[in-house]
């Protein structure tokens, strides 16, 4: 089986949630003897991967529309970007992103002509047009994989019509839609009018690689509560900060680490100061590589207060490093994880109660992390890939 895949990121070239999921899923597919050609828009760095990694960058350069200064990221991963974006009329996406998406889709036509494959698999809206073009020239079936929708990214307020249209077109013209959770499946049914029979759920998993980095505590006495993700509305950083105030009233030795960057960062720093916990919350910025592992290991508890999370791999990562995770009920990962405590993202009181409890009662922390780790061992990319392969076989026949 040969699959032509279009993605926007690919770990470790870029380690956003999408890149991690694409790398994990393809790793699993390769174990099931699927040959994957993975196309990304970025320039390829010299790395070893398990897939045939193709960069569309060279072809894209030849497709001149308007000159591009820097490729923008659809997930707003850095403060640098949010500063950049201030110049644009659109608050969430710069115009350049759409041009980049367009050129990527043009390049896809060329690539599809050169490569041989049985089906096309496209990850998230930036690649849907590329997938559709490849389908057009090859006549092969297309699967679009929904890792997030515009409704998750915006919390339903200020949905970008252009992005929504691309998503909707991709979902309707594809032969199958894969969503990362039942939560996302319902979203796709409700907001995009896709028939439930056409949607299959393939949950994400976690990669077992670890670099075994050392993770010293800030001081021995400190208890650390971790937030790791983009500081954007979707991830619920504001609920985390409010929770931090309530917890620090009960557990004075608690410290709160916010790892990530995003357009709400400044507001969060102000709010922390307003609440009088400026010295308790540390804004660590965007973490990469070993620092991510270190952050998970240092933490006593990981909190994912997302307002809307199609899946959410980070709690699984935390558990992998022995840290218990508290997760929002509004998430896909809550469908597969039992040994955690689930809270509504808006239920700050419950969140604070649970976090304070984990910090106060060591046996709670120990038991929950041990049991979660046992459970995590049963969740693998290989299983997700197997599910994916079943869907491939459905559309090929």
């Amino acid at each position, binding site marked *: 089986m040969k699959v032509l895949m279009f993605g926007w990121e690919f770990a470790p070239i870029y380690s956003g949630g999408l890149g991690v999921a694409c790398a994990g899923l393809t790793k699993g597919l390769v174990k099931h003897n699927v040959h994957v050609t993975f196309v990304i828009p970025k320039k390829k760095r010299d790395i070893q991967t398990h897939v045939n990694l193709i960069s569309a960058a060279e072809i894209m350069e030849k497709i001149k529309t308007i000159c591009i200064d820097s490729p923008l990221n659809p997930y707003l991963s850095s403060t640098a970007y949010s500063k950049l974006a201030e110049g644009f009329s659109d608050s969430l996406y710069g115009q350049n992103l759409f041009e980049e998406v367009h050129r990527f889709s043009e390049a896809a036509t060329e690539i599809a002509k050169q490569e041989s494959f049985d089906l096309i698999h496209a990850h998230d809206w930036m690649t849907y047009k590329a997938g559709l073009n490849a389908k057009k020239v090859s006549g092969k079936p297309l699967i679009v994989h929904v890792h997030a929708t515009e409704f998750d990214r915006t919390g339903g307020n200020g949905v970008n019509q252009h992005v929504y249209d691309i998503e909707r077109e991709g979902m309707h013209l594809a032969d199958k839609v894969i969503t990362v959770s039942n939560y996302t499946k319902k979203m796709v049914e409700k907001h995009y009018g896709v028939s439930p029979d056409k949607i299959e759920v393939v949950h994400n998993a976690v990669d077992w690689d670890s670099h075994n980095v050392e993770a010293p505590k800030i001081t021995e006495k400190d208890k650390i509560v971790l937030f790791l993700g983009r500081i954007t509305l979707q991830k619920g950083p504001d609920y985390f900060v409010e929770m931090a105030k309530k917890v620090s009233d009960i557990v004075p030795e608690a410290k709160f680490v916010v790892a990530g960057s995003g357009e709400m960062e400044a507001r969060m720093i102000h709010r922390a100061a307003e609440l009088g916990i400026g010295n308790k919350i540390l804004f660590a910025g965007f973490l990469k590589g070993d620092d991510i592992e270190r952050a998970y290991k240092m933490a006593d508890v990981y909190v994912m207060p997302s307002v809307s999370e199609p899946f959410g791999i980070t709690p699984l990562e935390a558990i992998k490093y022995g840290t218990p995770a508290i997760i929002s009920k509004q998430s896909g990962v809550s469908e597969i994880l039992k040994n955690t405590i689930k809270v509504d993202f808006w239920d700050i*009181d419950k969140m604070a109660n649970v976090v304070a*409890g984990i910090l106060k009662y060591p*046996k709670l922390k120990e*038991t929950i992390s041990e049991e979660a780790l046992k459970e995590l061992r049963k969740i693998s990319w290989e299983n997700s890939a197997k599910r994916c392969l079943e869907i491939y076989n459905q559309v090929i026949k």
Partner: protein
Amino acid sequence: MTSVCIYFQVHQPFRMTSYRVFDIGKHANYFDEKKNEEITKKVAAKCYLPANKLMLDLIAKTNGKFKIAYSISGTALEQFERYAPEVIELFKELAKTGCVEFLGETYYHSLSFLYSQKEFEEQVKKHDKKIKELFGQRPRVFRNTELIYNNELGKFAEKMGYKAVLAEGWDRILEWRSPNFVYMPVGTKKIKLLLKNYKLSDDIAFRFSNRDWVEWPLTAEKFAAWISAIQGQTINLFMDYETIGEHQWEETGIFDFLKCLPFELLKYSHIEFKTPSEVADMDAVATLDIPNTISWADMERDLSAWTGNKMQQSALQELYKLESAIKKSSDKKLLEDWRKLQTSDHFYYMCVKYFSDGDVHKYFNPYDTPYESYLAFMNILNDLAIRIKKTPAKGLFSRLLRK
């Protein structure tokens, strides 16, 4: 003659509230009155009331040949008195028939036997007293919480004056022996040990409505035939009373099954119903040595459902650590709250054993996860500890006053 000895366990815990960290030191509303009332009334309607009426009816129609025993925890009795007094009235009527025996247990359905002998004795006596008050008989047979049993319990029950004590007829203990005979605990003089026939008991309690079971549907006629074929002194059928109408819903035909069972059994001339204390009048065939603690729970038949993980162990340790301070204080409410927290269900809710598989443990758990029940429990214990500090110990002054 072979006797059939039926005992039903009746129990309801005082379920806790989701007491939060922020509540510590602020208020002592530990128990969810609304939920407890709701559940008591629901189970009364589905099980206790119709089942009690059925038993009264069966005793009348068999002219007293049908006999049963109940063990009712103090926490269940208190909740019936408060939320469903008609259940108590029916139990009183059952007591008057002379065909119903009430067993002794710890008032708070606790694990105190494992943690504090003093507290255990006090709770057993408190329960005895309550049964005497309500039903006019003093329990003569003892059953410990969840049939938790070992040699020490057998000796203890004898010392307390009981005629018999109940335990699980678990294969690993019995080896080649049969549960259908009367035994004696090792190291005792005359107390008897009655063992649950778990296969036949579980056919009713767990398998009755299981359509994948080869014997489904189980009829009274079939079940009676199985029993009649058994060689032995007694077939002990022990189960939760809530089996009738609550675990096995009315729609499964459980009431119809029980309606017919006594008559089907009495068709066999060698079968008679006996209460546990009547069975205890028979001679024992052997002594049984059970040094390791057993129970009637789960596949393991051990204590792991209540004491298997670190949360459970720490919760129990912290709870019993408060005993001497609680007893030194003069506060009755404090003692009562502490005792209500001893009910085994609280620790059962913290069990993670099968949590990932989402099985029977989950069905009974008022919390979403074992972790949340531990959290609430520990928060409550912290508040309790603060209250103890605020309460003056029974000091010289109060002792002088009493003189």
